[in-house]
């Protein structure tokens, strides 16, 4: 406890608070801009942290990391474009709520859920960081496969009315994930001789095309001038009762996020879907998910901030960064002569504990700044349709360009915008495509790795305990889904 108090003292110094707060602001902005994510902002700030005290530097980076996870939700809710890949699930209900005029409720819920997710994961970290490091080692290819399979079952429930179209959408996403270099054979697949496809499709431009561009095209076609947003979008925040009702769900989803964060090979872009899937399965309103329900915003948002604390476990305790963001933090640690890994808790315990405490403070700042941003950001999209949609296109294409400083992602965005437009028109599901794409790579590599390790035996998915739990959950999730969908019909008939 002495260490904890010491860390608290360090983190609460005015200069440390300032660094942390600055990081959070940068993170929220970076997260909200599609195409720029927390890890890019962190890498750009990194060289400026050279002269700083190591703890200040880490607090600033941790601030960006936390802020970025929430920032993605702002654009997800207000314009239907996930600002970061981890906000893809938030679009589902967040954007629908915005369309129904409940923008403030959606943004507020996203903020509250993100903050609680961050708090829960920081708390878990303080108590369990060292034992969790051992758990991180228990996640091998078979476990990743189980996680990916569990995530993919969500395709079924994202399908809407026509399950076949939903499954086809999911398969299309999986197929997109196979573009690029075969992770085992090392040969190029489905790249049609286009050098830009050699590395496969980047998630962000595909997502921006499918979500944003296709939507804008659809709106242009409708040509119905809607009211100004201030008449339809309210800045009213969720009530205390609404939040309290969702607390159990938020707590569970925060833990889901934290747990996925501990797995160095997974990450926030997967955690948000797992949490969404969980919420949809257990909620009484499960059938309303995707039409704009609060649970659908709360679940993915608390999970993606829950990841922040979890991701610190492999970083600090094993010195293995599970994502680009934690890789930058590793860079910062190394830069200051601190070697993360099992010895960090023995040699420089103040560092990990300051990060833990710093995560709490960062989440508090995130809540504060997020709250201040709710009204202005809703006002910002409160522009006439023509301005709003051209603004969205400008933002999306600029974001695409910043990804590689090259026109290729713009072409990808446009291409998937047109594809998305036609698919939407014919009742296919863009979110199922995105889900397939997000999970496709990990699904494939972990399956092939597991089978290599087991010499081709499929029993590996049932004989290893964690993998067995995940496999069972996958099967149960499907049983639940089909049960809910088909059983009542039969009883009525």
């Amino acid at each position, binding site marked *: 406890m002495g260490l904890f108090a010491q860390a608290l003292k360090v983190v609460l110094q005015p200069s440390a608070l300032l660094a942390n707060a600055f990081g959070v602001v940068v993170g929220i902005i970076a997260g909200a801009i599609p195409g720029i994510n927390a890890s890019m902002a962190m890498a750009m700030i*990194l*060289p400026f942290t050279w002269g700083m005290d190591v703890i200040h530097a880490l607090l600033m980076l941790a601030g960006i990391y936390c802020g970025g996870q929430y920032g993605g939700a702002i654009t997800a809710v207000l314009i239907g474009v996930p600002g970061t890949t981890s906000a893809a699930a938030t679009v589902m209900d967040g954007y629908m709520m915005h369309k129904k005029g409940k923008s403030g409720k959606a943004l507020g819920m996203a903020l509250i859920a993100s903050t609680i997710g961050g708090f829960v994961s920081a708390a878990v970290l303080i108590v369990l960081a060292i034992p969790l490091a051992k758990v991180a080692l228990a996640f091998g290819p078979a476990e990743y496969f189980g996680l990916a399979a569990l995530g993919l079952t969500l395709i079924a429930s994202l399908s809407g009315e026509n399950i076949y179209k939903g499954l086809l959408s999911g398969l299309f996403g999986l197929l997109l994930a196979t573009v690029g270099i075969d992770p085992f054979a090392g040969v*190029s697949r489905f790249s049609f001789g286009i050098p830009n496809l050699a590395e496969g499709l980047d998630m962000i431009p595909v997502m921006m095309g499918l979500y944003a561009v296709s939507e804008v095209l659809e709106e242009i076609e409708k040509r119905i001038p809607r009211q100004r947003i201030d008449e339809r979008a309210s800045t009213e925040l969720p009530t205390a009762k609404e939040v309290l009702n969702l607390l159990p769900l938020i707590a569970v989803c925060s833990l889901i996020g934290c747990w996925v964060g501990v797995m160095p090979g997974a990450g926030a872009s997967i955690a948000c879907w797992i949490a969404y899937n969980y919420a949809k399965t257990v909620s009484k309103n499960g059938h309303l998910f995707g039409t704009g329900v609060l649970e659908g915003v709360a679940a993915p948002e608390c999970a993606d901030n829950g990841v922040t604390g979890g991701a610190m476990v492999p970083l600090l305790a094993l*010195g*293995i960064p599970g994502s680009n963001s934690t890789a930058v933090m590793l860079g910062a640690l190394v830069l200051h002569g601190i070697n993360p890994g099992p010895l960090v808790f023995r040699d420089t315990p103040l560092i990990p504990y300051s990060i833990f405490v710093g995560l709490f403070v960062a989440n508090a700042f995130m809540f504060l700044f997020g709250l201040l941003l709710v009204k202005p950001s809703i006002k910002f999209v409160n522009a006439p349709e023509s301005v709003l949609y051209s603004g969205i296109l400008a933002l999306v294409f600029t974001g695409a360009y910043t990804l590689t400083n090259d026109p290729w992602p713009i072409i990808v965005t446009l291409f998937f915008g047109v594809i998305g437009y036609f698919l939407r028109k014919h009742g296919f599901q863009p979110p199922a495509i995105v889900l397939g794409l997000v999970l496709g790579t990990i699904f494939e590599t972990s399956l092939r790795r597991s089978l290599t390790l087991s010499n081709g035996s499929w029993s590996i998915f049932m004989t290893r305990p964690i993998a067995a739990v995940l496999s069972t959950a996958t099967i149960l999730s499907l049983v639940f889904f089909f049960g809910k969908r088909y059983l009542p019909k039969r009883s009525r008939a």
Partner: protein
Amino acid sequence: MKRVIALVSVLGILIGLTLVLSGCKSEAKSYPSKSISIVYHSSAGSGGDIFLRNLGKALEKQLKQPIVIENRPGGGGATAWGYVAKAKPDGYTLLGISSTIITGPLQTPMDVNYKSFKPIAQVFYDPTVIFTSSKSEFRSFKEIIEYAKAHPKEMKWGAGSPGSAESLTLKYIMNQVGAEIQVVPFEGGGDVAVEVMAGRLAAGIGEYAEIAHLVRSGDLKILVGLGSERIPGLPDVPTLKEEGVDFVFEKVRGLMAPKDTPDYVVQKLVDAIKKVYDDAEFKKYYTESNIIPLFRGPEELSKVLDQQNEFFKSMIGK
């Protein structure tokens, strides 16, 4: 509202004019007279990117001009390389390279390869090592190879993606010693380290920098290094040569420039690079990051790249 738009457009025009005019300024004789960008093929935050950002900061002090790291990921490297190959050869656009500039174009057909650029210098090398869990029964490279030979195709080793430098060198080493193993590909050295620590893989190959802390903590042990000399700080780890395999691999980290960059520019950069090793902050960075300073001028770098190219070319078909 209208007034705001007018104001913004006036501002925009002013900024545009300034940019145009500053571009027109005649090139000063002394290089560099403005900021230099170093382009890299992976995104901000990757290992190579962090290296360049630190190198850039140290070079800034020597060249007295800002150095900007520009990330142009995508296309397996082709995006960045194609961009620099076509850039104005004035020394203001440079390319940061790793061994991927050799292996990338060999794996996927591209319009560019390392020969499309003018070498400036190799600045460091990344030591590559073969490691196993400290709990492993194998105490030396010889022991593990003996086992692998006695049990063909039974052992599972981890390495990077199939066309990566690590995978290809591992394949070569196994061919040399006459052992057959199964290689499980992973995205990077960190992932391999987790699998090896957890005991799911018998051994792995990767950059020393990525696992150094796990060696220090006693979770992993290094069986052999692939460099020409023993790694500083690890006097007990033999090199592959000492273990009886006549093979050296040192991952290159350096800088190149567009083909027609004038010699005086290259010279100026070479002189500056020679001095960065003494920069106190930079020294701290590279010592802590476990990369080994190794300066090679343009001709030598070009020779090393040729050698590595020949080697990987011969391995990729196999």
